[in-house]
């Protein structure tokens, strides 16, 4: 156990410089976050270091003014539906991609990579147009469909390497023991890929709750998620008090923070951003 000795992280002047930059980044980041939190609890805050007086009223006001209750319900509904459907569609596809080699496999991988690589706005606008044409947009169904577009490929790209590292001989062994396809899935593959499925589910959840553009383009008044409601409240600032927007932002961030802490218990932090890089090898 030689690793127990803490490695020297500092020492050279370059090392100090790097730590200086990191600390500067964190100090400012903390400033950004704390400024919002402080403001959300402040009575009045104008051209002083700290607000004059404290209050928690803004939270109640934000809750009422922005009808946060229904918004949170919508956010939850969208997130759960997107996670469930994208797993149902994505996991079998990931299995087939991991196991089979067939003509056009690379083309199919590219097809699944594109929705992740393109900025959401580029396909969001035509997608919203199509969804409006067929009457999906403006409702929950439209928001869910739009959010599935990057989520399904994301599940596929996260799960494919995961399934690849499960020895295919184990499935064959199950077959030779007399297991049917569904039994192989249920009794062998599912227990072995629970960590991967959990990771993919949480990642899709985090991304869906945070996804602004697609929801923004397809949501109607009754189908806004929290981010979109927050955006509207901010861009219409002046009508509402600044502090109540801050309060809403704090609610949003706390929610994301809880998700993050849960996520980090199950997944490698790198997975939070993408597994796309690994796919290209």
């Amino acid at each position, binding site marked *: 156990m030689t690793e127990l000795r803490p490695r020297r992280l500092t020492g050279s002047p370059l090392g100090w410089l790097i730590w200086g930059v990191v600390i500067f980044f964190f100090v400012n980041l903390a400033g950004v976050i704390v400024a919002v939190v402080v403001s959300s609890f402040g009575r009045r805050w104008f051209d002083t270091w700290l607000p004059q007086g404290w209050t928690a009223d803004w939270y109640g006001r934000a809750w009422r003014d922005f009808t946060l209750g229904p918004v949170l319900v919508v956010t939850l509904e969208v997130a759960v539906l997107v996670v469930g459907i994208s797993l149902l569609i994505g996991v079998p596809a990931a299995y087939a991609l991991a196991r089979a080699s067939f003509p056009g496999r690379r083309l199919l991988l590219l097809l699944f990579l594109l929705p992740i690589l393109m900025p959401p706005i580029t396909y969001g606008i035509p997608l919203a147009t199509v969804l409006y044409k067929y009457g999906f947009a403006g409702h929950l169904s439209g928001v869910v469909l739009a959010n599935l577009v990057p989520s399904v490929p994301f599940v596929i790209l996260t799960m494919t390497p995961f399934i690849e590292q499960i020895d295919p*001989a*184990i499935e*064959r062994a*199950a*077959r*030779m*023991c*007399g297991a049917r396809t569904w039994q192989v899935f249920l*009794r062998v593959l599912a227990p*072995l890929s629970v960590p991967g499925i959990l990771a993919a589910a949480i990642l899709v959840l985090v991304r869906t709750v945070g996804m602004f553009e697609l929801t923004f383009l397809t949501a109607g008044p009754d189908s806004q998620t929290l981010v979109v409601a927050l955006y509207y409240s901010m861009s219409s600032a002046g009508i509402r008090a600044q502090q109540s927007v801050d309060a809403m932002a704090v609610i949003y961030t706390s929610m994301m923070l809880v998700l993050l802490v849960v996520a980090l218990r199950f997944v490698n932090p790198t997975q939070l951003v993408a597994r796309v890089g690994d796919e290209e090898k």
Partner: protein
Amino acid sequence: MSEPGFRELRLDGVGRSFGGREALAGLTLTIRKGEFIALLGPSGCGKSTALNCLAGLLPLTRGSIWRDDARLDTVPPERRGFGMVFQNYALFPHLTVRRNVAFGLQMRRVPRAETRRRVDEALRLVHLGEHAGKLPGQLSGGQQQRVAIARAVVLEPSLVLMDEPLSNLDAKLRLEMRTEIRRLHQTLGLTTVYVTHDQEEALSLADRLVVLREGRVEQIGTPEEVHGSPVSRHVADFMGYRNLLPLKAEPPAAGRVTVGGEGITMTGTPVGAIAAGDLVVAAARPEDLSIATEGVPATVEVVEYQGREVAVEARTEAGIALFLRGPTRPAPGDRIHVAVDPARLLVFPRDDP
């Protein structure tokens, strides 16, 4: 509750290609009940492909498989009722040893009490009774191997397939498990198809050997036949005929042929049609060459002590290497004469593929 038995299993021109590349070309073979068959060949010869086709894990691209009069190659693997032991064991890492072995019985909906009894029996058979509650990751390689065998034989399958099951074990364990597998076959009488690249393993275990090369059958026969009378220089090469000398034939006479060239003259036994002037390959095992008072002159280059015997590499004037094995121990640089029993020097036509 054992699997439906069969009198014989017939492979009829079974072939498999991958995107046009032929991995197995037309294997025709009849496996009789209770037989132990070894598929033998160097890596890439198609032996694992053949096994996977037989298991149903790989769809055929040619031919058909029959169990007595019923067509088998269209039946999915889980319904063929075969057992299989995989090269890297393929134990379910999330199940205990007991539940690994019970898996197949559960798939067949065998009653709980009977499952328990049969699993216990199978584990006792492979001496793993006290490890039943462990996960595969907690076992040594040899123990994992025995779990894999128990998992396959507990079903009393009509056919057991083994894919190089000993190749991941160290030398000592490999010998022990080899005896164990032979003992199991004798006790249970299970029809077995065994894939290996180790000729010694194949010779010691099997009733019949199928030697494959580049997807084609080179020879099918008993261990004695394949070992003593290989039908081609490739089989000879694989069976330990380390001396393969490219020479030229003189007119054959009375079941003997004299071959020569490059300053060598030897007399051997022709295998196949050989005429005077043909280019041939003369094959002999190291233990069939001996140091004598007359014969092919050569200079000793390398001497390896191998227990009771000594392996010698010598080189003729023309630069051809000869491999010998015997009790005498020359020193490097010694000039010797090498002789061979004509019955043990096999002469093959050189132009065979």
